[in-house]
């Protein structure tokens, strides 16, 4: 059974690119356009990995991460946090519970490498 990845980003084009890339590698993909919707999906569905943007309406990626770790108690679920901002400190996000920080624009190849290493 293919592994399921949840993509959380308010940009439709980013979601499309991630989906195409991941599906090409045989992953099953679920999309959510903000943290709030992603949280609802995670409550009901078992995912193997989450890729979340930081800045989104309703609930940010960091808030989602916090809820995943503390409310859903999914401490081992890999969560990749994406950001377009420069000069961000990856260690800070790791401390908050992220598995990896991905800076946009990223290479789909490097994304796949990271995903493969986490699942």
């Amino acid at each position, binding site marked *: 059974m293919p592994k399921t990845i949840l993509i959380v980003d308010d940009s439709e084009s980013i979601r499309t690119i991630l989906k195409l890339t991941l599906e090409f590698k045989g992953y099953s993909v679920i999309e959510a356009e903000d943290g709030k919707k992603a949280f609802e999906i995670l409550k009901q569905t078992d995912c193997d990995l989450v890729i979340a943007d930081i800045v989104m*309406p309703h609930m940010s990626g960091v808030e989602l991460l916090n809820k995943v770790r503390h409310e859903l108690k999914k401490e081992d679920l890999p969560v990749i946090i994406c950001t*377009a*901002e420069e000069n961000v400190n990856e260690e800070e996000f790791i401390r908050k519970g992220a598995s990896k920080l991905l800076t*946009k*624009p*990223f*290479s*789909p190849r490097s994304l796949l490498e990271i995903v493969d290493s986490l699942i």
Partner: protein
Amino acid sequence: MPDSELNSHLRGLETQMPQRMKTGIPGLDKILDGGFLYHNAILLKGPPGSGKTTLGIQVVYNGVLHFDEPGIIVLFEQFPQQLFRDISSYQWEIEDLIKEQKLTILFAQAEEVVAKDPGLDSPLISKIHNAVVETSAKRIVIDSISHFINIVKPRMDERELLLRFINSLKSIGLTPILTAEMESRDEKIGFEEYLVDCAVMLSSEASKDKTFPMRLIEVRKTRGHNHIRGKHPYRISERGVEIFPHLLPRRYEKEVSKDVSLEKVSSGIDGLDELLGGGYICGTSIIVAGMPGTFKTTVGVQFLTAGVKSDEKALLITFNESPSFLARIMKEKGIELESYLSSGKINIWHFFPKDFYMDELLYLLEDELKQHDIKRVVVDGINELERGIEDPATYKDFIAAFLSLLGRNNITSLFTQKLDQFPGSAPLTSIKYASMFDGIIFLGTIEIESAVHKVVSVLKMRGGDFSSDLREISCGKNGLYVLDKFVGLTGILAGNPQGQYKKTVEEIFQPLYFLRDFIDILASSDLEEDQRGQIVNNLKTEVTKLEETLKKHFSEEE
């Protein structure tokens, strides 16, 4: 009428009459807490041209016309034709009332006030007495007491004379209204003020911030009832004297906070409601601040037209653009205003603030709000109002009174404020009296990648449930709409945006990396034929999308 008849007439007066003698001048009755008291002697004192005679005659005239109370006008040293000429400038029709014996006019000489024998009534009192017997008059105006006092002064004590005169009028059931000249502006309290029950001062002074002299009325003393203290502006128009009581902002604070509902009303702008946390909170007053050309007026107008769509009546107060010009500009932006104005769904006030007293405006506004059941108000150009009042403290009081008036009528209102220079990173500090308003919306322009973008941000909103994102605002075929936020940029409000423009990153570079990686994958040989076909199709789609994005980005800037 024999004395017994007169006495029973007087007793009738005491039991039948309501205690308050309404002047029929709404503003004055408000200041007087309902009107004068019957049988109180009233003094109207002011310099020449301040309208004392007009006011006195008006109170008597209104008594006849509106309260079925016959009246008497006593004029000293005046010819009848002079009176009729003066009165002809007002919309008063006194001739018929005189014929019907509802109004009596007596022309008197100063000497007639003095009794020939101390035990008898003076000739004037006898004349007045006869008129009361004939017409059952209840109100009388004496214009003016200064005339006879000055003439009889050398011969007798003016205090005693006036007291006897007032008491004689009261004793025949009249409520005397006495006018008196004020010789100089800094005149001390005159003896006549001690003898009357109610003293009303009128003044007229040149004003720097108005196109007309500042006329002020002040009730200095009342016996037996309350009044609103302070000086209240008044105007003399063809309707006579109109008074605009000073509104006291503090009195209404409790009423405003008593019934706070958090019901929200739409801004009428796509995307802005989301920033506002659902819309403006009903009954709040919001500043919309920005430099010229940042859609301030349009934000206001769209708020009003949205109200009309949900059957709420609206009022637009504008100082700069004329209604027809404004309607034309809005039409160009795809916003229908003209038909709403002509059908009366949106009322419009277009005037020059220097032509009005601020209290007068509030008075007219309260009337307008109640009469037309208005729910939304936009004041386009609060700066113009400020220019109409030179003293900052007075301006602040005025705004406080304005806002409390809107608040207690549960009106949702927007006030546009023009900022003269770019407010920098702390726009709140450049907005005057920001703390008095429930919310602040900032509109500005920023430059990113050689293109000017208009932006909107909610800086403050009562209730706190709002987003402080800085978003782009643009005008389409159907008015304004709010776009995505500017992420990845800092220093926008400081006028120096730094960082990458996220849209460019996501819309151009991300597909580019995608294409590059997939070309590599295609180049590798270990692909099945159907996998290769799918990748080619995906690549074609992404190339088309990228081309569109690039075209959009670069053609817009040309």
